[in-house]
């Protein structure tokens, strides 16, 4: 081995030893220590519950993406508040998967475009997790639990069984395939949550204060809102659990704090006209975003005719003819108003003898109701009074007469709309006139009809609530849009889950569909539990 001379060995050895030394030095702790390099300097590591709560409330109000699809495309045409001769699927009994699923998509996961502020379920679960077990946080915790009830009730009313107990726990519990909870179990728990929340408030502890967009941290208002939500739960289950409906309603009105007392107790998100960053309808009213950019919303013939028949002063507040476009002079003469029939597309309007395809001859949603800073309502005092009127008609033990509640409800429903701006208002004399022309009739069924027709008119723009109350009460008595669509011409009675759930949460999804007898053909017509769905024990329809 002549090449292994001493000097060569020495050179190679020294080089290798340096290499080894280098490795040793490099693998010391210092080299692997990057300090806080991998901590995003644009985000916080610790949450601030106040700021998260405002986000949660704003999220409930939604964005253009989900409110366009859920309300303007589906619930409002279904319940015949509005009509659209173009593509609004709810107007034509049609199933469009991505539109049908948008509320589910956004409220749990942020939706296909990933808007983290829309994840109201997740944001509520996360916030509750932060606040739980801290005595000084009881008021914040209680308010958050009530917000969670609000968001879950809207979801289950739209879809039926939904992921509930295990939902929104991806980061907290590593739960990625949450079970779908039966709607009856959800309703029991929503009730229990409201009760627990009301009991939890302590006047001596801090509140969300100005971070609370609904009530500015007013504990009494929160209690009234919670009890009013319970009243809503109660009436919702009246067909399938009349016993429970009565006891929940009586419990709510007699509970600590009682129910809403005036329009000051209305639960709504105030919006502002800007700034314009983020998803459309982030700071702004989501419905207005759509109506500003895509003005294709007409009042339904059903709605217009009902208001005309009753001499309703809201007709020209909710709608107007805009022959020269919505920014030009409007025609507000009630007699000239004409609603658009549901279920007619442009061609069918053109082909019809009864209707015209000249779209400017139909009453549009009034431009005063499409300002970007218009509020979004979730429950109003008007609704509460009308529910109390119904409770009285049903002979439940609530204070006050049906007539008094009915009148207070109608009056409130005409008053609260001034929150759309001072140009949207009904005078006291008009209200008085209206009430004298449309007093509560006699007879149980006639009374229920009158009350729930008013509930329908009072929940314009709250499509989910209006549609839900129609499904459970049967009022107003609507005729399905004359279009086969995907329902065989039947009313849409639920929206369907995202199809992604079939791939991503398949077992639970299948279980929920089977439990509710949902198939591809009845996915829009299957009834949710409180609407006499598959596993309802009884049905008083």
């Amino acid at each position, binding site marked *: 081995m002549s090449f292994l001379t001493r000097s060569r060995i020495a*050179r190679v050895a020294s080089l290798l030893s340096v290499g080894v030394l280098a490795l040793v030095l490099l693998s010391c702790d210092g080299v692997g220590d990057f300090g806080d390099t991998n901590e995003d300097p644009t985000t916080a590591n610790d949450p601030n519950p106040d700021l998260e709560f405002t986000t949660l409330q704003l999220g409930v109000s939604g964005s253009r993406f989900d409110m366009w699809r859920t309300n303007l495309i589906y619930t409002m045409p279904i319940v015949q508040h509005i009509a659209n001769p173009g593509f609004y699927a709810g107007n034509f009994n049609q199933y469009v998967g991505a539109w049908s699923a948008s509320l589910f998509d956004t409220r749990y*996961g942020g939706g296909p475009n990933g808007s983290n502020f829309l994840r109201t379920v997740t944001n509520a679960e996360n916030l509750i997790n932060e606040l739980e077990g801290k005595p000084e946080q009881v008021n914040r915790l209680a308010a958050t639990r009530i917000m969670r009830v609000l968001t879950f009730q809207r979801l289950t009313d739209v879809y039926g069984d939904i992921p509930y107990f295990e939902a929104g726990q991806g980061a907290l519990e590593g739960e990625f395939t949450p079970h779908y909870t039966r709607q009856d179990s959800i309703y029991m728990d929503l009730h229990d949550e409201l009760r627990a929340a009301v009991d939890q408030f302590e006047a001596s502890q801090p509140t969300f204060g100005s971070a609370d967009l609904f009530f500015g941290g007013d504990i009494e208002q929160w209690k009234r809102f919670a009890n009013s939500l319970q009243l809503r739960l109660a009436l919702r289950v009246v067909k399938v659990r009349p016993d429970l409906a009565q006891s929940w309603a009586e419990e709510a009105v007699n509970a600590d704090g009682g129910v809403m007392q005036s329009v000051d107790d209305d639960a709504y998100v105030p919006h502002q006209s800007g700034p314009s960053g983020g998803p459309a309808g982030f700071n702004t009213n989501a419905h207005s975003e759509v109506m500003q950019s895509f003005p294709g919303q007409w009042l339904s013939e059903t709605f217009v005719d009902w208001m005309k028949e009753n001499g309703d002063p809201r007709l020209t507040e909710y709608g107007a003819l805009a022959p020269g476009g919505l920014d030009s002079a409007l025609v507000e003469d009630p007699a000239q108003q004409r609603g658009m029939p549901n279920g007619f597309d442009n061609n069918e309007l053109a082909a019809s003898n009864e209707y015209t395809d000249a779209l400017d001859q139909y009453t549009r949603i009034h431009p005063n109701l499409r300002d970007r800073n218009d509020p979004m309502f979730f429950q109003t005092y008007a609704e509460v009074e009308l529910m109390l009127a119904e409770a009285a008609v049903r002979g439940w033990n609530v204070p006050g007469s049906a007539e008094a509640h009915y009148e207070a409800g109608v009056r409130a429903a005409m008053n609260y709309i001034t929150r759309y701006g001072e140009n949207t208002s009904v005078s006291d004399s008009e209200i008085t006139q209206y009430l004298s022309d449309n007093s509560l009739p006699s007879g149980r069924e006639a009374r229920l009809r009158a009350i729930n027709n008013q509930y329908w008119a009072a929940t314009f723009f709250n499509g989910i609530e209006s549609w839900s109350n129609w499904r459970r009460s049967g009022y107003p008595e609507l005729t399905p849009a004359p279009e086969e669509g995907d329902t065989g011409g039947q009313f849409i009675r639920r929206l369907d889950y995202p199809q992604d759930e079939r791939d991503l949460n398949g077992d639970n999804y299948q279980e929920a569909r089977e439990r509710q007898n949902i198939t591809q053909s009845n996915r829009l017509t299957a009834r949710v539990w409180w609407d006499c769905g598959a596993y309802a024990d009884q049905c008083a329809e």
Partner: protein
Amino acid sequence: MPPFVSSCSSFKIVLTAVFGALLACGLPGGVQAVHAQDFEVTGTVVSADNQSPLPGVNIREAGTSRGTVTGPDGGFRLAVDSPQDTLTFSFIGYQTKTVPVDGRSEIRVVLETESQELEGVVVTALGIERQQRSVGYATSSIEAQDLVDVTESNPANLLQGNVPGLVLSSNASGPNSSSSINIRGVSSIAGNNDPLFIVDGVPIDNTVIGGAGKFGGRDGGSALSVVSPENISDISVLKGAGAAALYGTRARDGVVLITTKTGRTSAPGEVNVQYSSTVTAKDVISGFSDFQSQYGQGTQGRAPSNQDAALSAGLSSWGAPLGEVDEAPQFDGTARPYDDVADRQGFYRTGLSQRHSLSINAGFENTSLRLSASHQNTEGVVPNSGYEQTNINLRGQTRLGGLTADASVTYQNELTDNRTFLNDAARNPNYLISFLPNNIPKSALQPGATEEGVEKQFTSDGLPTNPYWAVNELEADDDKDRILGNVNLNYSINDWLSLQGQTGLDWYSLRRTNVDAFGSAFEPGGAMTEDTYRVWESNSKLLATATPSLTDELSLRLDVGGSLRHRQFELVGVFGRNFSIPDLETISNTANPTRNYDFSEQQIRSFFGSASFTYRDYLFLTLTTRGDWSSTIPEDNNPFVYPSVSGSFVFTDAFDLPDALSYGKVRASWAEIGGDTDPYRTSLTYGIIGQHQGQALETITQLSVPLLDLKPTSTREIELGFETQFFNDRFGVDFTWYRRSTVDQILDVTVSSASGYTARTANSGEIRNTGVELLLTSIPFSTEDWTWDSRVNFGANRSEVESLAPGLDVRVGPENRLATANIAQVVGQPANAIYGNTYVRDDQGRIVHGEDGLPLSGEKEVLGTGAPDWTLGFSNTISYQNVSLDFLVDAKWGGKVFSGTNANAYGNGLHKATLDARAACDEQAGSNGRYPEDCFVGEGVIGSVNGEGEVTVDRENDVGVRPSEYYGRISGEIAEEFVYDANFIKLRQLRLSYDLPSSVMSRVPVRSASVSVVGRNLFYLYDSVPNISPESSYNSEATPGFEQAGVPQSRSIGASVNLRF
């Protein structure tokens, strides 16, 4: 500047210590015992080119520090230890030569220029030049001559068809659009699959900022344009993990090494000036070929009866047969003849482009300088789109004893005008013009604005933007300034040990302005965005190289070093809507603008080492190792260390073989490369997302649940190959087989949104790619006047998703605009599969319809992948004396594309496929021309499908529907119909060039001149997709295989002049 400074300085100290130690170790070899210098050698050094003397040549006595340089006459005189010593002659631009004195007192040395040295030499990882024969993995190189006088502002496009196995796809956007480059298939499910680009030893940032997605967007532009084609000396592509292992993480998908020109001249003291100019015209070649031209705008077989009906019909071409009515009212209330007048292709213009470049080379004895400048001005084929580029580069090299310094700096400015929006209808000028009904003259849409200055709207649905409004009133401009700097010091301590230190900086600032003008239908008040991106990346490395001599037969080369990478990204942006003064497009004129800030940072610290053994110059073995600490990986999982081994055997030198086989080599390599991830993926954080009613809004930032214990990914590759040359190198074969698989993928796994998140970060899954690469070279004939060079390169790759996460068989990625298909990873299927809704078919393959007579939409299935099975390039150069003709034909085969253009053409009734149904309905139309509701019965059966996918057939389809409903259903719900084979054979390039003969040159003050005519992307010899180009894509990186309403393919024809003074 966060902790980088402090923690890094300790690292630097370490490195300094290491290299200090290395130096100290190296010196004993250098400072040897001083002997009497008792022998004198004299001589001259001349250039091999013209035998002229070379002054300034460095001469060293091997194993000592003694040396001298040649004088002005090329002569030298040096005292050496003994007549048996060896002298080393080195000079910039020339090949270093070692000459044994052999007892001679006078020596004449001839130095070959370096370009001749390049033959048989490849540049490998870390810029190490190695003999081709010693390399145990596949490399490809492209010579500079193939790059000049071809106008592609994105130099990556020049690789198309030139490298076996390299798959390039560019976006259907305007000038300098980005492209994705894929070598050996997709290795990462969620991350970037582009190779690493290295310019003169320093990585450059190739991140594409932004791109079109489901709801549209604009292409982000290529970052590679910073390298001027005129400055490129050569490009080599290191394809495998074995080749790239020393570069680490980012080189997992290969490395493209770009070497730029130096200022060396053929003789010292000379100054060369080179000027070239290229003028190119570009025009649209493909599109709309299978659209029908029999029917016009309308619905149910009738033309619109009034303006409202026309507005509401919009892009619907379900009207009456053209000519059936004389005229019909249109969107603007004007009635125009109901004839075929659309002329969609006429919307596009011929885009002219000019490029001028000037370079000055100055070579001195030990120093050379090169200054180059270029300017390019390009018009896109979309009106009002354009691109302007200015590039200045200065490079200098100098040698001082054993120290070589090489530094370069590049400044570039790029201005992009109106980058075209793609895919979705809003802002995208291609959309409306693509689907314009036949009877609408495009001139009716001009100039895009009404007299009131708002968008002249074509449809009552405001989304599809009037194309003239889009190009005249909307803005999407980029202004990018970039500086690339690089300093490289190399010190030879002695004849077997050298040190290299290099640092490079890539810094750019990108200013991006988007304006939606006041009066845009989709944004009536107008809106604008002003974003400034700043990207900063530095890379530094230290490398010690030792070549200790072992024996005459066995030699060793050792490389040991460390490197640092630091990248910062910052975005400062502002967005506002609703201009107060309609035509004043500035942020302060918007109501309540919002601001946007983003920042990210990452660092990698690495060590690496390589040992290469050579036995008798025919057997080679290389071992490498590298370890990375990445700031994006939790501390406990750092560092990750990965090795490689490769070897080659030149059997023609080892054995006595027939003469016909002039060269033969087999090679093999095995390598592993670790991979990190993006910053900030290991914890849940809370972000401020704005304010409402004076209250700040905060929520969880992540839509994907982070993984706290993130591990690096690992790519393992085995590669086998051979290279052979026959008949004195007239015919050559280079073949490679590889298998690579990437495990522990860091990917966001889509989860049920009910979990509260759209995804979770997982550390699992495996993708495997297997493929072959083949290069055939031949010189079919070669005479004094004629030569013909021919190359065929071929690459085939098959990818397979072996696994994803436990319990997960499908990972759904980006969705197409119609929401009928996704790009998905499906276990057992190729990576990046097009996963879309299919028809429901019965066991005889008949299409199953519902009771409504419309086709049912079935389960999502894998319908193919955007990646081709194989690619082929066939290039030829035929020269006769001073004239040379070359052409390149390239082909891609086996990939698929989902065509949104064709899907929309179905829905809009613009596709030829809708004609038969309408002919049937025309016959049944009522007196008013209106189709009955049941005039068309689709072929197939009526039946149903249950939850298990079982099909029950009831009867032959007997339910009539309107064709618009039928084709609307297919368009909106069946992806299968619109997935086409994206096969093509294309004449990619044709070039004719002529070098002016020296007899002409002697009369003018020009040393040499050449002129050429070049055509790029000339035409398809074969193409399997109707209406669109099979290469079309709106985001080749994120959604390969999806197309919709892009800029049609264009061809370019140019002429260029190249002068040397």
